[in-house]
């Protein structure tokens, strides 16, 4: 039994060459959910981008947002497409919207029984998972029903 929700051996997330998403991944290491917010008009920008799509300002700052959301959609994966997931069994991916941040959406796994019913609209909270022994070390943001 892996100490992580999904087996070890999945691709390790790292920032791009231009470091666009680096503050997000660094935030997760400290159990913080960091997203971009436009300093010109207050729009939350997610996923990471260099410009605000609302007012075209380049002045985007990284801010911590509350790890509380609602399930917007979900899927239960049965057929593995990665060797690390072979024989693992089903798992649930959720798309979570964050009402505290203009309903931007984030992807994660839903913790708990993989065969549970998944109610769209249900409230969830973030659960950080730290892969300290990976090289490089990284962290993920999962979700659990409240």
């Amino acid at each position, binding site marked *: 039994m892996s100490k992580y929700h999904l087996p070890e051996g999945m691709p390790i997330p*790292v920032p791009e060459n231009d470091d666009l998403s680096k503050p997000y991944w660094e935030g997760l290491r400290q159990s913080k959910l960091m997203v971009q917010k436009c300093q010109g008009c207050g729009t939350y920008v*997610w996923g990471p981008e260099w410009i605000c799509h609302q007012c075209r300002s380049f002045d985007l700052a990284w801010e911590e947002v509350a790890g509380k959301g609602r399930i917007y959609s979900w*899927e239960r994966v049965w057929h593995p497409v990665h*060797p690390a997931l072979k024989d693992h069994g089903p798992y649930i991916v959720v798309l979570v919207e964050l009402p505290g941040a203009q309903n931007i959406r984030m992807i994660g*796994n839903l913790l708990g029984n993989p065969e549970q019913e998944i109610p769209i609209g249900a409230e969830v909270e973030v659960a950080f998972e730290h892969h300290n022994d990976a090289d490089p070390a990284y962290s993920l943001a999962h979700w659990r029903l409240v």
Partner: protein
Amino acid sequence: MGRRTLRGQVAVVGIGETTYYRHGQAPDPEFKLALKAILAAAEDAGIDPTEIDGFASYSNDRNDPSRLAAALGTKQLRFSNMQWGGGGGGGAAAVGNAAAAIATGMADCVVVFRALAQGQFARFGQGPQVPTISGDLAMQAPYGLMSPGQRYAMKVIRFMHEHGVEQEALRAIALASYHHAQSNPRAVMNGRPLDEETYDASRWIVEPFHLFDCCMENDGAAALIVVSAERAKDMPHKPSYLLSAAGGSDYRCGAPSHNHPNYASSNFATVAPNLYEMAGLKPSDVDVVQSYENFTGGVMMSLVEHGFFPPEAANDFLKPENLLSRTGQLPLNTSGGNLAECYMHGLELQIEAVRQLRGTSTAQAPDVNVSMVTAGPMVTPVSSLIFGSEATL
């Protein structure tokens, strides 16, 4: 300048394809498959292949037009075009691009082609097997969201949730494709009929997609020859006139990490109105539809967004009897398509749309004058087109 339109300016006059194979089973390398399909299309059009002066493809096809032109000994290369975007979203746009080149005098005879040999190259339905990953994929792959099916299932789940769509609606789309493949000797699934019980008992790939909701992966190649409408009149086959082509996607469709505002969508929200506007037609004018099936849920949303029924009517409309070629009110995927004929990235659907207008389909719909293709739902950009008979001009 008059009204800018492609309507009636060009026609498909030649169609060609190789034998369709299960993935990894093609006896030829991919480039040779491309050559064979192009030669078959030229022969069907009754033209000398050296007359081809333009090439159009999509989805980063690996077979470079300069190499093709050199290998075929074409007299000159005037148009070399790639539609951006992955999946089959560029299938109709590539025909539109070819048409635009011809209509504006940039080329005279353009071949639209697609070739796939997944034994020679990587398969689509596999996750990235790399130690590290970055960019938008890094927000998804570590959570086991990797393959096309996994990328689009949540759009379909959300749509089904918003509109109360049942699994049986998706099943009807799969059953129609398999039904049509049984009369099509080219179809990889010819001789392998599908019934409701088999569908229901089939394993989940990713909910809401059973095995039979997912396209195959195949090897082969397909090609279409496009010329001006004027020249098409003198060709051996009845021309399939292009009435309209449209591509693209709606507001912030490509927003990263599944943040497209209009999420529960096949991404035709703006493309379909543009399509009908150029054609001067409405959904009820369409006689037969080939709708790209990466997954049945994408077909369902494509049909909704092209106006064939409102989302609330999906359960009532999407019944196999409504989708069958000879008797249904909307004959759908009449060759078997990506599910059951061959996954030629949707170019086999364009060929089938032409066959329906010629009256040579193996599941011929009655009295076809308007024949539609929708390409690559849920990716961005998507595209669609409408072919018409001479009577529609």
